[in-house]
């Protein structure tokens, strides 16, 4: 933790960056994301096992867009998010300094994109064993039961869109769910509306989601919507050998093709 502070302080002191995105102590023993602009503020910077939020999210918000260049305390999920955003032309390498930290909390110092790619390959994926079990359980269900399972799972959804707000990949200025003519996704949080919304979100993240699990963690009613993207990521890895967040120059699966894509259902 000290090492991170030292690096951060130096960066700010030498005015290499104008902003550092990290964490600070919140009320009770909680933590919250924090934005430091002066070296002396770094004292409040902390990093412990509670700092699991994917703060790459803020890179597309105004506070970071205004800063000429900035640094960020990046666990592997954040690093992968940054690489994927870079591949989608959202972040320029020269404007960001990555202070890499492994899942166990060991600081690996400043990473350029090349090093970040190696780092993200070595770190384990965000999928937890119980997520995998849930995917198997659902896939084992018969069709009708699966449908009812998901309709039930989505029924508590009140369309607060916290999942969209917490996902670094959902950086669209005007999200499609807000278009009214034509209204592709019903606004009301009824069963039909919820199902369509989560299906569209899963399709939009197909081949782009780095499986950090923020969407599920930020969902007030804990809907297991992250496993939709987990399942698709595995499928896309098997079928097209394409994985998000692994390199800065990368075309997601649905924007590229090979003439020998295997399929067995087109007559």
């Amino acid at each position, binding site marked *: 933790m000290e090492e991170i502070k030292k690096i951060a302080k130096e960066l700010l002191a030498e005015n290499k960056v104008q902003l550092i995105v990290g964490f600070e102590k919140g009320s009770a023993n909680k933590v919250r994301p924090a934005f430091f602009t002066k070296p002396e503020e770094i004292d409040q910077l902390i990093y412990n096992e509670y700092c699991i939020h994917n703060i790459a999210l803020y890179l597309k918000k105004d506070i970071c867009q205004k800063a000429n260049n900035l640094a960020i305390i990046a666990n592997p999920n954040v690093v992968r998010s940054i690489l994927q955003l870079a591949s989608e032309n959202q972040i320029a390498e020269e404007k960001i300094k990555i202070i890499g930290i492994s899942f166990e909390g060991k600081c690996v110092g400043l990473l350029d994109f090349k090093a970040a790619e190696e780092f993200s390959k070595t770190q384990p994926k965000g999928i937890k064993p119980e997520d995998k079990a849930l995917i198997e359980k659902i896939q084992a269900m018969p069709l009708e039961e699966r449908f009812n399972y998901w*309709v039930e799972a989505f029924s508590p959804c009140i369309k607060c869109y916290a999942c969209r707000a917490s996902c670094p990949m959902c950086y669209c200025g005007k999200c499609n769910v807000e278009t009214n003519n034509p209204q592709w996704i019903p606004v009301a949080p009824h069963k039909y509306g919820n199902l369509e919304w989560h299906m569209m979100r899963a399709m939009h993240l197909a081949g782009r989601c780095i499986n950090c699990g923020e969407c599920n963690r930020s969902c007030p009613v804990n809907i297991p919507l992250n496993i939709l993207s987990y399942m698709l990521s595995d499928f896309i890895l098997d079928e097209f050998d394409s994985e998000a967040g692994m390199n800065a120059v990368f075309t997601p699966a649905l924007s590229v093709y090979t003439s020998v894509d295997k399929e067995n259902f087109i007559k």
Partner: protein
Amino acid sequence: MSEFEPKIVAFVCNWCTYAGADLTGTSRIKYSANVRIVRFPCTGRIDYMLLTKAFASGADGIIVSGCHPNDCHYTSGNFYARRRWMVFKKICDFMGIDTRRIVFSWVSAAEGGKWAEIVNSTNEEIKKLGPYESYHKLSTQDILA
């Protein structure tokens, strides 16, 4: 009770399958009248949200058809479409949407007979599966609940 007549929507590409369906017409090959054709410039243009929209609006079956690989008028539209359908079919199946009701096919401008056969066989299959009540109920009654 008259026998169940499925509502089938066909999303087809203008250069191959639409022309193939025209050829079915000029050759006077009869096929089921339960299908309605919606024309797209290319299969690459067919948006997956239109499929769920079709189910929600009362369709029981959907046919998506375009040019054979390498025959696409725009070179690669059908290749992108193929990848999209592989992913879309996977997520739909995982979410319990009955992908047996969506028939994907390649029909060229010279295959009038094949188009009639695809429509008739899809019509038979959907008749066996019956109306897509669970989705229609979801998108109609459940809205009011």
